[in-house]
Every structure is written in structure tokens, then in C-alpha cells.
């Protein structure tokens, strides 16, 4: 084969074109975009961590040890930190009294304190466990719960809200947008007018009212967020459908007797899938932000659950003394938002290069 190729002149019949599809093309463009790839990797890491949270060697997110409140982030065990704290306290006391070293009875006090710490137990799942050796990598919160566990489990809830919320809103938005675009006429007019009016309302205000009045369950949260966030999707899908509905393949479908529903959901909606996928990735961070916004006002999920937003909200009081409670959830959340946004932007540019730079 090789030899044959070398001897033959090049002409149009022995050239082969590498097969490509819209999808492969998009993947190739996406892989060139370094920020998008980095974003994708970070998102995958987050997803793996939150999915495998029960398997990770971390503490429970709701288990409290009141003696371990407000411990700073450290690789040392909680008992050691408490012991050092006590020693430092006694030393300052001694310094104030004009001494450089501890008195024997103070040393003895320290000894008994250590004994007590080492023998301290607490009941967990019906079994007593020792509290001395517990390590809190990211410190603890105001009730002595492990911050690392709370951030990971909070991330689970936050990401779940982002995912489920955007999927719900995209389902609603796609259906309504498709109906408006396909039916046209009065239906279209009514739906667009409704969307316009809803758009002019500050929808977060509406969500605040709904959450405050109807109670603060996770279900209500989904309902309230999905209720207001399908508008953009509906608009975009409507536009797409209008531009597609007079094309030949729809006419063909109609000529072989396909019904309206079939045309909309089997032929039109799949053709808008690209933009829908992009929208989903871009709405997930939005949902996480909206949930965090509500949590920050005290309207998010309720204890013992946590989300990144509620962790940030809890940390604002007393952040002068315990700043790590603010930093870690904030960094975790912002990193995820960044990753998601870069990935979403990259995906948009990859699927539809014409949209690039158009925000």
C-alpha cells in the first residue's frame, strides 16, 4: 500500500478526508481553549469529591463537639491545640505576674487538663469515641463541627441545587419557548408579553418573598428559583425555533403526517440542543449563586444541612476572630463558579463560534 501511494500522483480520487462532525469539531475547539479545559477538570474534581463524600475519611458534617468550637485550621489534633492554648494562657498569666516559668501547681494543673482531654469521650452513633485525636484540617465552626466536612457536604447540596435547578428551569423554559415559537400568533404574543413583564421584575425579590412566606424547605427553594429562571431559556429557545420552523426538514416531517407535538419535540427541540447545553452549564453557577444569596439572607436551606452560601453567612459574624470560617467556603465556592463559567464560556465558543465575544 505504501509503495503504491508513493508512486501514484495526487489527485482528487485517492485523497481521503478525515471524518468530522459538529460534536468532534466542538471538542477539538474546546480542547484548544486552555481555560475551559482547566475549568472542566476542576468541575470534574468537585463532582468526584462531592459524589464520593460518604467514602472519604472525613468527619460527619452534623456531628458537634462543643469543646471543639472555633478551632483554627491545623494538621495538629484538636486536643493538642487546646492544650497549647491552655499553656499559652497560663504563660501569659505568669508573665503578667512577673514570672518566666510556670509554677509547679500550674504545671500540675496543665497535667490534669491533659489527662482530662485525653480521656474525654463523647457519644457518637451510640458508641463513645475519644475526642483528643480528632484533626480538623480546616478548623471548626461555632458548634464544633468540622469545617472541611461541612464544605464538602455543603458543596454536595449547592451543586445539587445548581444541577436540579437548572435542569428544571431548562425543561420549563424549553417547553414554553418551543410552544411560543412554534405556535406563533396570539399564543406567542401572550407568552412573550408575560416573559417581558416577568423580566422587568427584580426576580430575586420575588424569590425572597416566596421563600419568606412559604417556608424555607429545599423543595420550596427549587420551586421559587425555577419559577423565575426559565425566562431566558424560553426566550432563546423561542428565537431558535422561529428561525428553524420554516426550514425544509420540518416541511418534510409535516408532509409525511407528523403531528405538532412530534415536530416540536422530535425535530425542532433536538436542533436547539447545543444552545440548551451551553445554557445549562451557564445557569448552574447562577443557581448556586442565587441559592447562596438567599442563604446569606437566612432564607436558604435549613440546619443541619449546609450550603456554601449558608457557611459564608454563618461566618460573617465573628470573622475578625475566626476568619478561616469565611475564607475556606468563599474560596471553594468562588473557584467552582470560576471553573463553571470558564467551562461554560468555552463550551459556548466551541459549539457556536459566532457567539464569541458577544457576551
Amino acid at each position: 500500500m505504501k509503495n503504491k501511494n508513493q508512486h501514484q500522483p495526487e489527485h482528487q480520487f485517492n485523497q481521503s478526508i478525515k471524518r468530522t462532525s459538529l460534536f468532534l469539531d466542538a471538542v477539538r475547539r474546546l480542547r484548544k481553549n486552555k481555560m475551559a479545559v482547566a475549568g472542566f477538570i476542576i468541575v470534574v474534581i468537585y463532582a468526584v469529591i462531592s459524589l464520593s463524600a460518604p467514602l472519604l475519611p472525613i468527619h460527619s458534617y452534623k456531628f458537634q463537639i462543643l469543646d471543639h468550637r472555633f478551632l483554627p485550621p491545623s494538621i495538629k489534633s484538636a486536643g493538642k491545640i487546646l492544650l497549647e492554648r491552655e499553656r499559652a494562657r497560663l504563660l501569659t498569666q505568669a508573665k503578667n505576674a512577673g514570672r518566666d516559668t510556670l509554677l509547679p501547681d500550674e504545671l500540675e494543673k496543665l497535667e490534669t487538663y491533659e489527662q482530662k482531654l485525653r480521656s474525654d469521650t463523647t457519644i457518637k452513633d451510640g458508641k463513645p469515641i475519644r475526642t483528643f485525636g480528632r484533626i480538623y484540617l480546616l478548623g471548626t465552626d461555632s458548634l464544633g463541627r468540622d469545617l472541611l466536612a461541612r464544605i464538602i457536604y455543603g458543596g454536595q447540596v449547592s451543586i445539587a441545587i445548581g444541577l436540579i435547578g437548572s435542569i428544571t428551569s431548562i425543561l420549563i423554559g424549553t417547553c414554553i419557548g418551543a410552544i411560543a415559537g412554534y405556535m406563533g400568533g396570539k399564543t406567542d404574543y401572550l407568552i412573550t408579553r408575560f416573559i417581558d413583564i416577568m423580566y422587568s421584575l427584580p426576580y430575586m425579590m420575588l424569590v425572597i418573598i416566596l421563600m419568606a412566606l412559604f417556608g424555607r424547605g429545599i423543595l420550596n427553594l427549587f420551586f421559587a428559583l425555577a419559577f423565575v429562571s426559565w425566562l431566558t431559556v424560553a426566550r432563546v429557545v423561542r428565537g431558535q425555533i422561529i428561525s428553524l420552523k420554516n426550514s425544509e426538514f420540518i416541511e418534510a416531517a409535516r408532509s409525511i403526517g407528523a403531528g405538532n407535538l412530534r415536530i416540536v419535540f422530535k425535530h425542532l427541540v433536538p436542533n436547539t440542543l447545543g444552545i440548551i447545553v451551553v445554557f445549562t452549564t451557564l445557569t448552574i453557577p447562577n443557581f448556586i449563586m442565587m441559592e447562596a444569596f438567599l442563604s446569606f439572607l437566612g432564607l436558604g436551606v435549613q440546619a443541619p444541612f449546609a450550603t456554601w452560601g449558608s457557611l459564608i453567612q454563618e461566618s460573617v459574624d465573628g470573622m475578625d476572630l475566626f476568619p478561616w470560617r469565611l475564607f475556606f467556603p468563599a474560596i471553594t465556592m468562588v473557584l467552582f463558579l470560576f471553573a463553571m463559567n470558564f467551562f461554560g464560556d468555552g463550551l459556548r465558543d466551541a459549539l457556536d463560534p459566532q457567539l464569541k465575544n458577544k457576551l
Partner: protein
Amino acid sequence: MTKYIIRRLIGLIPTMFIIITISFFIIRIAPGGPFDKDKRYPPEIIKNMEKKYHYDEPILIQYARYMLDILKGDLGLSSAYPDHDVNYFVSRSLPKSVFIGIIALCIAVISGIGVSIISAAKQNSWIDYTAMSVAVFGITIPLFVVGPLLMYICAIRLHWLPTSGWIDGKYGWVTLIMPVITLSLPYFAYIARLSRASILEILRSDYIRTARAKGLSEPVILFKHVLKGSLLPVVSYLGPAMAGIVTGSVVVEKIFRIPGIGHFFVQAAFNRDYFLLMGTVIVYAVILLMANFIVDILYGFLDPRISYK
């Protein structure tokens, strides 16, 4: 033109009416009432209080009464703070929120456009990259992260600024710095990106090439021809930006403990303080409708292709 403005203003009335009606009924059909508290009053007292606020009447009569009161300019009584009526709270808190909001919006627009001009003029230089990285940060990081972080760094660690307070307090005007920065950052960032993109697009257009060919100097082209055209997307973004600032002010007021209207809005929603909640909703609706109205008018001034009929 005047005719158009008047007609638009009249057109706002039905929208306002719909907003008030919808929010009135949403608020009323929610379970619970203003007197459901941990510490319950005896039933006789609740009866008397319900009588005072007319909660015992059928809801349609209450609705009619409320609409009439609004026409008279009376927003009703607050049930959680019985010493004052809603007008008192609104008149006390609204100026503070409006003040901060307008300053934040102005700063966002002016600095956003300024940065975008520099970025676009020096495209792909380090200034451009820095500005656009800051913009990406500003868009992505939520207000309630920026606010506390700013407070931690500038107030608690460096002691440059007071943590909270208001102009009439002992710290004076510096108390405004952090709330305004927090509130304007995302809109500054968005406007900078939007305006940069549109400037770059216009710079490549034919009429700019013509202007260059005529021998106009670069600053004249940039400021006289490019800028005006590039303002259009920014102006159309002002409506959503205003809505965002109104929403964001709720959080900023909470972080920096400013007794603005956002504070009363959230409090009223929590307390089921019907009239106070309705009052704040009406105020917000008026602000946003007016903002959209002004944006529409501005748009006409900037874009000669739009005519008012």
C-alpha cells in the same frame, strides 16, 4: 417627543397596578399571618389587632381599601413596628438606599466605560489583560463574598475604614466607600466587558475606516465616533443593572448594617408585616419602572435610528 414621554408615563400605570395586585395576593395567600409568633398573644388581643389592621374583613374588601389608600399616598400601618406607619419607614430608609445605589451605578458606568476605552485602545497589552481579568473576577465573585472579604481586609485587618455606619455617624463619608465598591464591582465589570467588546467591533467598521481615511486623529475618532456608538449596549444594560443593584443592595445593606429599604424589605418578609412588605415592593417597582423608562428615553437620544411615535 414630549407626547411620547407622557404616553410612556401613562403606560406605566397599568403595569404598576398589575404588580401591586399580584404581589398583594401572593403575599396574602401564603400560609401564616403577621401575628403568628413564638410568643402568641391571647385570642382577644389578636382579634383586636386584626380589627385595627382590617385583617378580619374579606380579602377583596381589604384589597379595595388598600388600593384606595395607595391612591391617597398612604401605605398603611406596620404590624411589626406599630409606632410608625409604612410611609415613615420608607421616607427614612429610601433616601439612603437610593443614594448608595445611584453612586454605585454612576461609578460602575463611568469607570466601566473608562476602563473599556483604555482596554480597547491598547488591545492585547498588559493593561487590557489586567483590566479584563479584574472584570472576570468582578463578574464571577458574588457580592456577599466581596463584601465580607473587603470588610475583613480594609476594616478589620488594616483599620483603614470603619466596618459600618452611615454618613451622619462619627466616621462621615468614608463609611460609603466599602458598600459602594461592593455594590458597583459586578456592574463595573460587566459594563467594562460589554463596552470593550462593542468598541472593538465598531473600531473595525467601515465608517471608522472612512474617518481614519479622512485623516482624523485617533482621539477624535475614539471619543467622537466610536464611543457614542459603543454606548448603546451599555445603555440597554442599564435596566438589568439597575435591577441587580436594587437586589444587591439588600445584601450590601445587611453586610454593612445600613438601615436602608432592603433591610426593611427582608425584615417585613420575615415578620409577614403585610403593609410594610407591600410598601417596599411598591417602592422597588416604581424605582425599576422609572429606571427602564429613563433607559428607553436615553436610548432614543443615542440612537438616531429609533424614532418616537
